[in-house]
């Protein structure tokens, strides 16, 4: 089958050889270690704790939830005592209120766990509720609640369910390993999603640099009519939701719209597996696969960890940093889009896909020079923006110009900065201005709403009198 792709994009060195051939290894938290469960590991309303300090919790116990639809509950991944509820650093850099559980090492499971069901006998509502009640969110990085994504507005019929197996970020190999090790379960997860949208066809999009994964998934899909494996050109950001949809369906998700508007639902490999586990195994989201890589770590590989473990505990459990060439930069996720960490004392969350330990050589930051207007950022921007211009607007503080030239459509993939021969921090400046302008927009909307409400109230008063 011909490999598909999107326009523009970049080809960074993939760095996957460090960990690609390392089978997934289970890492259990040590007895007496503390696990942190931040109340916000997803897009949407933060959760509120259901437990108090001093309570005993068991594996699989729901310890936090929110009444909002756009939210996702959180589960204890070990058994032990709740010792504190306090702010803890998460990979994105924020301090988030977290439940601290001291692991008693017994891994006592709560009753009712492991009640697997046959999805073919379940109604759609039951499936959606089960997915919600298992705390499944998009594990590719965004953390969008999966039950929301799977239940789009009725006026947007879904005809494609895409599994995002591009794994276009360099270094990361966790999805790759899952496709080699658990292909049947991934396909089962996709079948559950297809049951919700019977008119849709399932497509598993995999980049051509993973031939073994393509082979493995193709084999697992044999005999299933509505699922195909689609090879994709190895190019960053192939795994961007909008660009994956474009590559496979040639549809463009309009500016500001959700994938469902293009008839597509896109979920990451590990997310699909979490759906399968929630339904068929009756287990909520308590673990995830993390790729630990980079030249600064002794044993690069793919590790199945309990969500909530600190990254320090993870690094210690797998043998630690190299003594002769220790890392100087830590990245949560891939090197193109992952935020840096200033410490290892960070809670792993549902969306933690990688930890990169970059040595001095790998972490080299070149000096920023004048823009020479070579246009490479324009030639490579997958969104068709003019990054050098947005960079100039950002430096000038010209928010209006920034918005007028579609700065808010930037997906922050970093292709511009990657290509820039003047080594300008294009993506960084654009991200900062995006935050400022998005904030202004939200504030303006809130003000308009408040004004409208006040006017309506005044009008009602006037009518009353």
């Amino acid at each position: 089958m011909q490999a598909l792709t999107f326009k523009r994009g970049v080809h960074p060195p993939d760095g996957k050889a460090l960990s690609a051939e390392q089978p997934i290894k289970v890492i259990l938290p040590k007895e007496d270690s503390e696990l942190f469960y931040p109340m916000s590991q997803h897009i949407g309303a933060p959760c509120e704790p259901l437990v108090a300090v001093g309570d005993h919790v068991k594996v699989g116990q729901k310890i936090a939830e929110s009444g909002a639809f756009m939210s996702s509950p959180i589960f204890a991944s070990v058994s032990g005592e709740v010792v504190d509820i306090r702010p803890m650093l998460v990979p994105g850099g924020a301090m988030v209120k977290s439940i601290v559980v001291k692991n008693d090492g017994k891994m006592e499971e709560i009753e009712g766990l492991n009640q697997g069901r046959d999805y073919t006998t379940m109604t759609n509502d039951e499936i959606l509720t089960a997915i919600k009640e298992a705390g499944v969110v998009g594990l590719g990085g965004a953390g969008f609640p999966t039950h929301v994504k799977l239940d789009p507005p009725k006026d947007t019929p879904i005809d494609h369910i895409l599994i995002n197996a591009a794994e276009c970020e360099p270094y990361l190999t966790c999805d790759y390993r899952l496709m080699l090790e658990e292909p049947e379960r991934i396909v089962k997860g996709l079948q559950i999603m297809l049951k919700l949208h019977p008119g849709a066809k399932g497509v598993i999009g995999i980049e051509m640099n993973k031939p073994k994964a393509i082979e493995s998934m193709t084999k697992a899909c044999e005999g299933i009519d509505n699922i195909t494996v689609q090879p994709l050109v190895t190019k960053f950001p192939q795994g961007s939701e909008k660009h994956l949809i474009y590559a496979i369906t040639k549809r463009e998700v309009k500016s500001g719209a959700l994938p469902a508007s293009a008839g597509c639902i896109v979920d990451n490999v590990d997310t699909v597996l979490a759906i399968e586990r929630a339904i068929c195994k009756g287990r909520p989201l308590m673990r995830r696969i993390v790729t630990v890589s980079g030249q600064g770590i002794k044993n690069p590989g793919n590790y199945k960890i309990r969500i909530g473990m600190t990254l320090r505990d993870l690094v210690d459990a797998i043998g630690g940093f190299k003594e002769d060439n220790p890392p100087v930069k830590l990245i949560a996720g891939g090197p193109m889009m992952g935020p840096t960490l200033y410490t290892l004392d960070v809670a792993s969350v549902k969306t933690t896909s990688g930890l990169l330990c970059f040595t001095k050589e790998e972490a080299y930051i070149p000096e920023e020079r004048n823009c020479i207007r070579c246009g490479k950022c324009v030639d490579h921007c997958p969104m068709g923006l003019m990054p050098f211009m947005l960079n100039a607007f950002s430096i000038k503080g010209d928010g209006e110009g920034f918005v007028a030239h579609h700065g808010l459509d930037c997906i922050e993939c970093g292709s511009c900065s990657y290509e820039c021969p003047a080594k300008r921090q294009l993506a960084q400046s654009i991200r900062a201005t995006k935050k400022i302008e998005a904030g202004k927009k939200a504030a303006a909307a809130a003000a308009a709403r408040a004004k409208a409400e006040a006017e309506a109230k005044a009008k009602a008063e006037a009518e009353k009198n």
Partner: protein
Amino acid sequence: MSNFVVSGTPHVRSKESIQSIMRDVIIALIPATAAGIYYFGVKAIILIAASIVSAVFFEWLYQKLLKKPVTISDLSAVVTGLLLAMNLPAAAPVWVAIVGSAFAIIFAKQLFGGLGQNFINPALAGRAFLLASYPTEMTTWPAPVGFSGADAVTIATPLSQMKTGAFPDASLMQLFLGQVGGCIGETCAAALIIGGLYLLWKHVISWKIPVIYIATVFVLTALIGRHGVRMPVYELFAGGLMLGAFFMATDYASSPVTPKGQVIFAVGCGVITTLIRIFGGYPEGVSYSILIMNVCVPLIERFTEPTIFGALPKVKEAK
């Protein structure tokens, strides 16, 4: 303990740098430089050296005097100096090269903010300045006698012969190989094409500007002709078209960034070059056509901004 580096994404960068791009441009100019030295001998070597050294010197001096970071290691001044030398007749005195470099670096480049901020091509600005100020020195063309030691006689360039309605002396092959009168670096079309192909292969330039520029000149000269004679192929290899199309019009700072804009820019260069050659007062129009299009770049870019991915259909405002 928290001593890890924190920085914005992305954390990997391509190997390409300003310096590597400039180095590629210099490499691409080696064949044409060698051809210029082969045809015009020691005088060419002296002019090229003087031009490069003075361009680098003036960049250094300006940055030192204004207490700015010295950036001569990015090699951009070397490129400007070399390109200026390519645009000088071999008979020009050394001081012409030095004055031209000073104008190119200080007035065209540094006063507007240095690298990337110049709105016109510095080397061409230097050449235009010299042509206006010292027309005799700038239009005295020695014959390509190389190192033969013979005192070079002054000859007419093919384009100036054609201007007068005469049939040029040089054959097409002589013209292609550069055995004609002209600036040091512009005569050997073969060497310039090799250099241009190298830049295309290295992705330093895109094909749009050079190919469309050359194609426009070809089509127009084929359509219009001169004195009833149409020699479009001859026109392509005559004068500074190859040098201009591959090395001058492609200057990043003074050409459009947008793909559509590059097409408009190249067509404009081709049209103006042909008009000057055939109807204008000068025999050659490459330099001025590029300079004129340079100043149109902001306008061109404004109207050729690319359509973004997922662009919303344009809706007319409801009244």
